[in-house]
């Protein structure tokens, strides 16, 4: 009898853990939603800020975020996918592979603030790019590179060997097989990784703050400084400028991440359906 009580108590505790985790999510999202949804309007999204952000909208930050994220993807995707292809197809020396992989792992583990320091020291100062969209996106590119590379590698590895063997058995070269069979099959996996990387770069604050600056003007060139959405939120919140607009910006960020997750999940589901 005691065993049954102990059993039920323990499982009950587990349920407590699970529900608490769920409660965290509902609390954070719900609280911000309730307080932020009121401030979101067409004007908010398309107008520039006034009075340091106390009034007006967040249009420049939206533009900045789009520039930063798009450019960082443009830089990181070819490198990440290219590296994955190289590891998949050409890298034969085991020791070299291990070192290269280890470097990617370290890159993945480096905290964002260190990327900020490096970006500041290297891109902003050493290369003389200054606080700019360019410095910011190059730094971001380095941060999302390991994610893109890892998911691309997994996508390539999960292409069924039967496809590859079938192609080779028909007399195709390894190169033709790679380009015409493997890459197309791995595309959704690779794109999923890219989408996840977008999610990461949208939320990145510390590194962007140190490399793209915090000017409120809408950036009009690669060398203009830019204030991304997350940096804008940080400044609004810590300098107590406008809680209401901070809530709205937070909500916008959460919605963006949510949409990105849904997109990535849909793609992953389509992927598993195809290979199953």
């Amino acid at each position: 009898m005691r065993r049954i009580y102990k059993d039920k108590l323990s499982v009950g505790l587990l349920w407590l853990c699970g529900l608490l985790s769920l409660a965290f999510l509902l609390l954070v999202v719900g609280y911000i939603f309730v307080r932020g949804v009121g401030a979101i309007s067409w004007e908010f999204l398309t107008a520039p800020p006034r009075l340091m952000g106390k009034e007006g909208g967040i249009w420049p930050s939206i533009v900045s975020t789009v520039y930063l994220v798009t450019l960082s993807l443009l830089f990181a995707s070819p490198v990440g996918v290219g590296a994955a292809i190289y590891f998949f197809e050409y890298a034969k020396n085991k020791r070299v592979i291990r070192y290269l992989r280890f470097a990617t792992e370290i890159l993945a583990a480096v905290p964002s603030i260190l990327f900020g320091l490096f970006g500041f020291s290297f891109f902003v100062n050493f290369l003389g790019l200054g606080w700019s969209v360019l410095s910011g996106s190059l730094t971001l590119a380095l941060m999302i590179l390991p994610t893109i590379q890892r998911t691309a590698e997994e996508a390539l590895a999960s292409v069924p060997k039967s496809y590859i063997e079938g192609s080779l058995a028909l007399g195709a070269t390894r190169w033709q097989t790679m380009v015409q069979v493997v890459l197309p099959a791995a595309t959704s996996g690779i794109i999923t990784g890219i989408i996840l990387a977008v999610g990461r770069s949208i939320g990145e604050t510390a590194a962007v703050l140190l490399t793209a600056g915090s000017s409120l003007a809408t950036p009009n060139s690669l060398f203009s400084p830019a204030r991304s959405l997350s940096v804008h939120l940080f400044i609004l919140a810590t300098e107590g400028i406008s809680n209401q607009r901070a809530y709205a910006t937070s909500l916008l960020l959460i919605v963006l991440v949510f949409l990105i997750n849904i997109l990535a999940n849909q793609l992953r589901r389509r992927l598993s359906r195809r290979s199953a």
Partner: protein
Amino acid sequence: MKRRREKIVFFLALAATISVAAVSLLCIFIIIEGWPLLKNVGFTPFLFGTTWEPSQGKFGILPMVAGTLAVTFGALLLAVPLAVGTALLLSEFAPKRFASFMRPALQLLAGIPSVVYGFFGLVFLIPRLAALFGGSGFSVLAGSIILTIMILPTIASISEDAIRAVPKSYREGSLALGATSWETARRVVLPAARSGIITAILLGLGRALGETMAVLMVTGNVATFPQSPHSPVRTLTGNIALEMGYATGLHRSALFATGIVLFVLIIILTLFANWTRGRAS
């Protein structure tokens, strides 16, 4: 045709080495920038110095080390049981529909930017902590709680994968001997998943150590040793983020030197995680 392909392969190989180039450059530049401070003040007084007062030329980061350790340790204390418990629940006891609903929920929790968590902590947690315990509310406790929410999904989902990977035959063997589901989970499944769970915890630890913005926004940023969970503190990462905007000369170099310390910590952690993973297989 073959020349073109050879060129492409060359670029692919180049791509593969970018990570190495990036890491090396990172090391080099951070060390170059941080070196002046280490030369001037010395490594030991830097790491173990107890006063951080750049305007007076005092560059001891021990209070920030203590701050980082306190917040991180507190977060692990809260997050690990919650996360592993959730993972066990989802894998062994919860109905399938609940489990498949929790997965995207945890994903969303993991994807929310840290500034948003910081802001949430600022407007929701701090006032309540101040009301409950007095003081300003900015504290180690606030940092730990926010960090817990942030690393919980990471530890939970990786632990869940590890638990699900335990072969079904173990569970059947245990049930057939007259054990309950809970006893099976605790005595057979959990120990069998141990190495995967440890990896999950190490990954969560890594995230916690590197976390900057959220903790920065709720811990009060006083560069002193924490006396209690309710003391305000400053972390290593927060220190850099806060002062980089206006630091010059030796001060700036000190911030880079802090970066070196962080970097070394991360490398040690990564090596350790690899070692435990290697030992498991």
